[in-house]
C-alpha cells in the first residue's frame, strides 16, 4: 500500500471502526423497533458488554476470541432479568423504564471502584480489528435478513402493526418480545466489546442517556423497513461530523440541518424499501 494511502487509512481508522460499531448498535435498535417495542436500553446493554469484556481482558487475561462471545453473557442475563417485568409495558412507558435502567447501570459504573468509577477503564488492548468488526456486522445483517424473511419476521411485523390482532392470530406475544430483547442485548453487547477493544478506553458517560438517543436516531433516520436502513442511518450520522470537520464552528449546525431535512422530507427514513418476504 502506498504510504499516503496508509496514512489516509490510519487517519480514518477510528471512523471505520465507529461505522462498524454504530452499525451493530443500529441493528440492536432495529430488532426491537421491528417488533413494535420502543426500548431504549441499547446503551445500557452496550455498557454491560463493554465493561464485562474489558474486565475479562484486563483482569482475567482471556484471549479475545473467548472474550467476544462471552461479552454477550452479561447483557443477555440483564435482558432476561428485566424483560419479564418491563415487557408488560409498551410505548413511551417502556421507553421511560429502559432509560431508567440505563441510568441505574451508569450509577453502578460510577460507584464501583473495580470498574474505575468516573475514571473508567483504560489501557484495554486494541484487539478488535476493523476486519473482525465488519465480519460481525455482516453476520448480524445476514442473520437478521434471514429471520426477517422467515415466519418469525412476519410475527414481528404483525406485532408491530397490531399486538392484539397478532395475539388473536396465535402469536406468542410475550415470547417474541423477550426474544427480540435478548437479540438486541446480544448485538449491543458485541458492539460494546468491540468498541472497548478498539479505542483503549471506556467511561461511564459513554453509556448514558445521550448515546441511547443517538442509537434511536440511527434507526429512525435510516428507516426500519429492512435491517439495511438502520445501518445506513448509523453510517450517515457517524460520517457527517467528520465530513463537516472543515466547517469548524458550523459543523454541528450542518449536522442538525441534515437530520431535520431528512425527517421533513423522508419521514419513512433514508431507505424506505421493505424487504421482500416469501409467501407463507
Amino acid at each position, binding site marked *: 500500500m502506498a504510504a499516503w494511502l496508509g*496514512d*489516509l487509512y*490510519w*487517519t*480514518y*481508522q*477510528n*471512523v471505520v471502526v*465507529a461505522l462498524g460499531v454504530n452499525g451493530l448498535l443500529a441493528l440492536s435498535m432495529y430488532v426491537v423497533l421491528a417488533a413494535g417495542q420502543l426500548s431504549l436500553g441499547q446503551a445500557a446493554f452496550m455498557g454491560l458488554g463493554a465493561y464485562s469484556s474489558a474486565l475479562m481482558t484486563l483482569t482475567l487475561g482471556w484471549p479475545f476470541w473467548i472474550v467476544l462471545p462471552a461479552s454477550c453473557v452479561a447483557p443477555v442475563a440483564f435482558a432476561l432479568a428485566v424483560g419479564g417485568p418491563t415487557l408488560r409495558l409498551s410505548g413511551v412507558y417502556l421507553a421511560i423504564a429502559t432509560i431508567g435502567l440505563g441510568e441505574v447501570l451508569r450509577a453502578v459504573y*460510577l*460507584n464501583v471502584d473495580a470498574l474505575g*468509577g*468516573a*475514571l*473508567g477503564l*483504560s*489501557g484495554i488492548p*486494541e484487539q478488535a480489528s476493523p476486519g473482525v468488526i465488519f465480519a460481525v456486522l455482516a453476520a448480524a445483517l445476514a442473520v437478521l435478513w434471514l429471520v426477517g424473511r422467515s415466519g418469525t419476521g412476519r410475527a414481528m411485523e404483525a406485532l408491530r402493526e397490531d399486538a392484539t390482532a397478532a395475539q388473536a392470530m396465535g402469536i406468542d406475544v410475550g415470547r417474541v418480545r423477550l426474544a427480540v430483547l435478548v437479540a438486541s442485548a446480544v448485538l449491543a453487547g458485541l458492539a460494546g466489546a468491540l468498541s472497548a477493544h478498539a*479505542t*483503549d*478506553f471506556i*467511561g*461511564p*458517560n*459513554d453509556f448514558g442517556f445521550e448515546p441511547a438517543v443517538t442509537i434511536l436516531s440511527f434507526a429512525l433516520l435510516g428507516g426500519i423497513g429492512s435491517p439495511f436502513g438502520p445501518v445506513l442511518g448509523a453510517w450517515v450520522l457517524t460520517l457527517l*461530523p*467528520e465530513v463537516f*470537520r472543515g466547517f*469548524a*464552528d458550523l*459543523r*454541528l449546525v450542518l449536522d442538525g440541518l441534515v437530520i431535520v431535512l431528512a425527517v421533513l422530507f423522508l419521514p419513512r427514513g433514508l431507505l424506505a424499501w421493505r424487504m421482500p418476504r416469501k409467501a407463507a
Partner: protein
Amino acid sequence: MLRRRIALAAAVLAMLAVPAHAGDPVPVGAVEILSGPNAAYGIAIKAGLDLALEAVNAKGVLGGRPLSLTVEDSGGTKDGAINAVRKLIGRDKVAAIIGPTLSNEMFAAGPVANGRGVPIIGTSTTAKGITDIGPFVFRTSLPEADVIPVTLKKAIARGVKTIALLYANDDAFSKSGFDSMKAAAEAAGLSIVAIDSFGSKDTDFSAQLTKIKSLKPDAVAISALVEPVSGVLLQARQLGFGKETLFIGGNGSNSPKLGQIAGAAADGLIVGSPWFVAKPDKLNTAFVAAFRAKYGKDPDQFAAQAYDTLLILAEAIDRAGDADPTKIRDALLKTDHTGPLGPFRFTDHRDPASTEGVVVLEMRGGAFGIAQ
C-alpha cells in the same frame, strides 16, 4: 490579455512547485473542546494558544520557520478526540499535539499519538495516570496531587487539625481530585472525620453538610466543579457554618465563577492554583497585558497553561534542531523554561517537576486574592 493569463498561470504553477525549503511552516496541532457543554475550557485554551503563536512566530522556530497551528474540535467525546488526533497526525502531519482538554479524552486519544510516536502534551489534564499512557505523553498541568499538599500546608499553618472531605463522585476530575485530597490529608497528618459524596448535578447537600457540622471539623475540603461547590457553600452558610470552619477547594473551585455564583458565601475559601492573574512577576504581567490587549478580558488558568505550553513546545522544537517528533520528544524532556506559570521543567515521567509556581488563593468579597 491571454498572454497575461498564461503568465499568471505559470506564476501560480511555479509557486506550487517550489520545493520544501527553510521557510516552510512547522505544523503542530491542538485538540480542544470547541463545541458542547465544556466548550468554555477549550475556547480559553485556544485563546492562550493563539496568543502564544503570535509571540513564537514573531521570530519563528528552527531559524525563522513559522509554526503553523491547526486546532481541531473534539466535542468533548472520546471518539471526537481520537478522530481529531488521527486527522492531525495522518493528514496534517503535525510534529506534536497539544491537548486534549479532558483527562478522559486523553485516556482515549493519548495511546493513538503515543503509538504513532508523536508527542502529545496535555495542558488541562489533571487526573492520575495520564503520563502512564506512554513515553510520548506529557502534561504541563500540575496534577491535583501536587497542588493540594501546598494548599493543605497553608491550612495547617492556620491551625487546622481535623478535616472533612466532600466530593462529586460522577466525574473523573472531581473523583481523582478527591483521591489526591485524601492521600495528601493523610500524609500531612490531618485527622479525617468524615468523607461524603454527591452528584455533580445535585442541588441539595443538606444531609451531608448537617452530618459534617455535627462533627465540627476545623476544615472542609471540597473536590467538585465550580457549580456544585458554589451550591455547597451557599447551603453551608444557611446551615450556620461560620468563620471557624475553613473551606478548602480543589482545582474545580479555582474559577472566578465561584465568586459570581456564591458571592459572600464563598468568602474565606482557599484554593491552590498553578497560576494567578495578579501574580506580580514580570513575565506574568506581560502575558496578562498582551492577553487583555488582544481579547479585551482577563485570561484564566487554562489560557495561561496553554500559552506557556506552546512556548515550551516551540523551544523544544528549536532545541531538537528538526521538526522530527522523536527528536522533539527528547528535547521536551530537557525543558528548562520560565514563563507566566513560573519556572518549568518535566520530571523523567513527563509530569511538571516543580510546584514553585503554585499560589494559594483566598476568596474575599467575591474575588480571589493571594492568601496571607
